[in-house]
């Protein structure tokens, strides 16, 4: 931390070889560089945030221009007393734990396998990464195609194995399907990050363990995992953030159905706003989601901080 309080522009040019950017009293060059971006970001985030708060205490009328009629705590009372809402949160939690858990496990597995491959690793990695760049809508629609009960490739495979029935038509089947679609799209991300972490484990440590006669699983447990724990943590948190954010796949495959089986909170919010046009209630749900995601983001930054991963 630089302690100097003031420095003239002239001085700033020539002295202080050790300081990256000399500290300025108020808004220095760095500050000026940040201004345009931050103003736009503030307009795009603080204004909607305030609007969200105002809306959550009002009834929003759309006809003849947007009007807010204050209704006090009405939306919030509804939010906390709606049993469907609690079910949605529970479902969101299960969905979240399943997708992120499976992605972490499979991603780690794929990364460990790829790490053992010496030739063609880059090509294999590229192939594994492909789903990550696919638009979630397409992933969802493709999922519908593959699981269609009459001509879907995957339902045909399942039929040959003895399972029949409409996958997206049954609650458990639909929930499993949307989880697996998300896992299909995002496991590559975990694999990519983990592989980078594995490549950072010093070779000498692993060799020493092998020379000492440690079996593979022990090396993994006591050498590799501790060494990549930071990277795994980052992967977990990055994926958690996005798992909370997105909902496109469910929206285009099951739309929350059948019988609410896949109605996670974002779907309910979307439906409340753009199907029932109840923007006030939607705003209350949105604020709750926002609070939840900020809580996770805080954890994220704090963890990275204590482990010295932020700059």
């Amino acid at each position, binding site marked *: 931390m630089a302690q100097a309080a003031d420095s003239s522009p002239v001085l700033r040019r020539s002295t202080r070889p050790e300081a990256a950017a000399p500290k300025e009293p108020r808004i220095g060059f760095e500050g000026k560089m940040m201004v345009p971006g931050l103003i736009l970001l503030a307009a795009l985030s603080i204004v909607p*945030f305030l609007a969200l708060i105002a809306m959550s205490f009002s009834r929003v009328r759309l006809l003849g221009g947007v009007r807010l009629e204050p209704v006090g705590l009405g939306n919030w009372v509804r939010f906390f007393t709606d049993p469907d809402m609690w079910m949605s949160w529970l479902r969101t939690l299960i969905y979240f734990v399943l997708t992120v858990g499976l992605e972490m496990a499979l991603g780690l597995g794929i990364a460990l396998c790829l790490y053992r491959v010496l030739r063609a690793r880059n090509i294999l990695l590229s192939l594994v990464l492909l789903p990550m760049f696919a638009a979630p809508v397409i992933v969802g629609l493709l999922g519908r*195609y593959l699981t269609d009960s009459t001509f879907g490739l995957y339902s045909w495979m399942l039929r040959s194995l003895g399972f029949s029935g409409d996958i997206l038509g049954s609650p458990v089947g639909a929930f499993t399907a949307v989880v697996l679609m998300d896992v299909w799209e995002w496991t590559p991300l975990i694999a990519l990050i983990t592989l980078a972490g594995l490549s950072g484990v010093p070779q000498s440590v692993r060799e020493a363990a092998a020379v000492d006669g440690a079996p593979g699983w022990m090396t993994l447990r006591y050498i590799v995992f501790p060494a990549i724990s930071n990277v795994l943590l980052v992967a977990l948190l990055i994926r958690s953030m996005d798992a909370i954010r997105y909902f496109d796949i469910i929206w285009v495959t099951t739309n929350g159905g059948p019988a609410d089986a896949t109605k996670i909170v974002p779907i309910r919010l*979307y439906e409340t706003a753009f199907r029932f046009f109840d923007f006030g209630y939607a705003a209350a749900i949105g604020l709750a989601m926002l609070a939840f995601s900020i809580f996770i983001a805080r954890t994220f930054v704090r963890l990275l901080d204590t482990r010295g991963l932020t700059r």
Partner: protein
Amino acid sequence: MSASTTPRSPAGQAARRDGRVIVAAPPGVPQSPLEDSSRRTRWTVAILLTVALLWTLVPLLWMLLSSFKNRTDVTAATPQVLFAPTLDNYRNLFTGSNNLGPYIWHSVLAAGISAVLAVCLGALAGYGLARTRMHGKKHLAFWIISTRMAPIAAIVVPLFLIFRGLGLIDSIPGLVLAYLTFNLPFAIWLMSAFFAEVPPSLEESALVAGCTRWQAFRTVILPLTKSGLVTTFVLCLVFAWNDYAFAVVFSGPNSQTLPIAASQLVTQTGIDWGQLTAIGTIVVVPMMLAGLAVRRWLVTGLTLGAVTGE
């Protein structure tokens, strides 16, 4: 801290940070872990990877194949692997009532402009963020990243009302702004991660040589982060191009994008799966190519610089 950074090249062939050394092995040099010498392990790895590749690639290949099938082959009860390929699906997408041309144009415009703006503003602000020593820098950084992590559904609702008030619904500028809500914070964090890799001594020398801060930034620092700029651009492009949640709310006949076109093929009367797989291919393939082109920097990009990889 960055004072001890001495990267051999800014792209980061070998980067030293917090004492962790991450070295990319030169191509062709085996970095074999000793314990994988056993034949059984090798077979297990091969089998597991084959399964992983099948799991990953079968849906994509099936989409590609189906896009060249005619109507009966697409919806055949037994999956057709051998069939007479046809370009009808693609041809139908560009002729007739629902011509895909405008959708592609809207997608290119909205995603492209938003990515360019995000990179420009993100580079400026990211540089400022990387170099500033102001009080409360951490809080500022947290605020920036928290806007990126906010749930899409929670942003869309108030933004919809604001855009309605401003007349931005069904316009490309509206979509560009909507996409900036996630691309701008992402670009700022990512660029600041790339700028942090550049040793501050380079600016110092430039300043000693008589440059202004701006000249030093423009002529010395910015060229060194070219890979960061390209990676940021590509990732912002992918995020915006793939967006559906914003586009479905904010766009109308004059601004509908490709993902909307795809979802519109789903109608009450049924889905033309041949056309749908063709659109899917058109949407997905360019972004896959773009993503793979920046693969070297993807780890830095997708972890916002928290992990420096190969």
